[in-house]
């Protein structure tokens, strides 16, 4: 049963299984295990990014396509939901049609871009998507009458998903059972389902073919696979998944703007999460996203402590000042690529042998 749920793709390493279980349990019971707004924010972010990163891995790890336009799809999904909610009010109908519309638009865009990849080489494709994504971001910021421009959109979501809605009056385990909690579990369960769907896709005959295309597209053609269609389908699937993740973010944040969805920075974060976790395995997305977001959220706090401890040393203390957390994130970038060349999952699985 469990293996069927995982599409037969078990973690294949004791430590990995343990880590994944810890992540799963922590996320499933996050509101109760780690009470507080910040930790709930972090947990929701992790859920959403697991889906986003996994959808990117579908493209990068399984199909071997480097694209910088993934945040564009993420953004399209988020804006779809956001626009529907702000235009037609906080109803479930608008939430759903906004989400669907976002996914459809993302699919159409992905189809066009995917077909373009027919013409150019991988590295050019990467650069083209980079340019397209940056143009898209500018476009969004210019069409402020629709998108709110740089300022983004603030909107309401159905009342049952907001803190104002109290499900029951008493607290359970000292936690308020309110709409926020509902919203979190919506994010959690949808993310879990999307993840399982992707796990199924990568273990399907289609997913296997993607790996073959990645390994040797030339030969894949010669045994009868129409490579372009596989690549394009993978691009579209991955875009739709990213768009759905975007919709989740839009619902969770009740805000959508370029900085939360379209920025190059997020794109790089996604890349790093995939690589840290391990490309070509969706479990890598889980670990990569979890670790990275934890680091991103708590590194600054940590550095605050370090800065105080070293305040006597003039140069060192400026280097570890919380303002310089990006510096250390950059260092982390470099180090993680060195130390996890095959990602955490690769390392754990190799360690098993």
């Amino acid at each position, binding site marked *: 049963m469990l293996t069927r749920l995982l599409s037969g793709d078990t973690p294949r390493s004791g430590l990995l299984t343990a880590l994944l279980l810890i992540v799963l349990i922590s996320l499933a019971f996050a509101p109760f295990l780690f009470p507080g707004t910040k930790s709930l924010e972090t947990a929701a972010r992790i859920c959403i990014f697991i889906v986003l990163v996994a959808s990117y891995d579908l493209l990068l790890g399984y199909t071997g396509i480097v694209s910088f336009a993934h945040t564009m799809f993420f953004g399209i999904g988020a804006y779809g939901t956001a626009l529907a909610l702000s235009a037609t009010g906080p109803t479930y109908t608008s939430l759903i049609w906004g989400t669907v519309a976002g996914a459809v638009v993302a699919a159409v865009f992905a189809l066009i871009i995917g077909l373009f990849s027919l013409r150019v080489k991988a590295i050019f494709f990467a650069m083209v998507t980079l340019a397209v994504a940056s143009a898209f971001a500018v476009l969004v910021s210019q069409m402020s009458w629709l998108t709110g421009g740089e300022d983004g959109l603030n909107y309401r979501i159905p009342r049952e998903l907001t803190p104002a809605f109290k499900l029951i009056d008493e607290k359970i385990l000292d936690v308020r059972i309110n709409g926020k909690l509902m919203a979190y579990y919506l994010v959690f369960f949808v993310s879990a389902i999307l993840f399982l769907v992707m796990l199924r896709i990568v273990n399907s005959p289609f997913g296997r073919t993607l790996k073959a295309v990645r390994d040797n597209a030339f030969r894949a*053609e010669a045994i009868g*696979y129409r490579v372009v269609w596989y690549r394009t389908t993978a691009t579209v699937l991955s875009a739709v998944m990213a768009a759905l993740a975007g919709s989740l973010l839009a619902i969770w944040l009740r805000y959508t703007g370029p900085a939360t969805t379209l920025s190059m920075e997020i794109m790089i974060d996604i890349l790093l999460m995939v690589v840290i976790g391990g490309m070509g395995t969706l479990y890598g997305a889980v670990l990569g996203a979890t670790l990275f977001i934890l680091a991103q959220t708590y590194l600054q706090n940590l550095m605050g402590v370090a800065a105080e401890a070293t305040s006597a040393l003039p140069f060192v203390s400026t280097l570890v000042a919380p303002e310089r957390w990006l510096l250390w994130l950059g260092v982390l970038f470099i180090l993680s690529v060195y130390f996890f060349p095959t990602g955490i999952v690769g390392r754990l699985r190799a360690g098993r042998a």
Partner: protein
Amino acid sequence: MVAKEHPILETRDLTIRFGGHVAVDHVSCSFDRGTLTAIVGPNGAGKTTYFNLISGQLTATSGSVLLNGETITRMSVPERTDRGIGRAFQLTNLFPTLSVRENVRLVAQAKAGKGFDLFSVAESHVELLERADHVLSEVRLIDQADQIVSALPHGDQRKLEVALLIALGPQVLMFDEPTAGMSVDEVPVILELIQKLKADMDRTILLVEHKMDVIRSLADRIIVLHNGELVADGDPAEVIALSIVQEAYLGKAPEASGEAA
């Protein structure tokens, strides 16, 4: 049946030009079902290019390729594969990070047309796995089935090339120097496989080889390419005896002929 009237494969005035260089020059030739034709010729004569034109890696400048009487000249590689053309490559060309079994399974999957099956688990298609294992035992690679291809010795990789072709089960099989770079003791294994293919199935085989003893033992017919042109075609013994083959290919004639262009 209409198909019976046609040779299984035919090329008519097949030509390809790279810049100004005519690599295959108006080659017209047809191949019958159940035959093994050896293609010989000096290095750079256009043998691999001819294969590429038939299987679709290259598209002809002019001329046409017909399979069972149907023109396939402008078709893409997968389309031709679907219609029954399969080939092995001169330089080994596999899926290096996948296992041996997965390599063959992918071919079986392609043949079964299941590539776009998105929501079933690949491992649940038992028939594909069985097919893969069957082919692997045929080529005596079943013991290495779980190895990753890139870790496989050279000879076994060549065998796997052949295995992929068998799993694909095309009407036309093309081998490009299957024994190149293989030590003396490995050669017979491959030859035996090709022999078996020829005997077991009613297939058409095209074979590029430089080793004359191999050709003698396998071929029903030899065609000779030279500077992209088809210069000889016929019974092995006769063709080998031709002076152009002796001179330009085997280098047997005493006097030197001409210098570089």
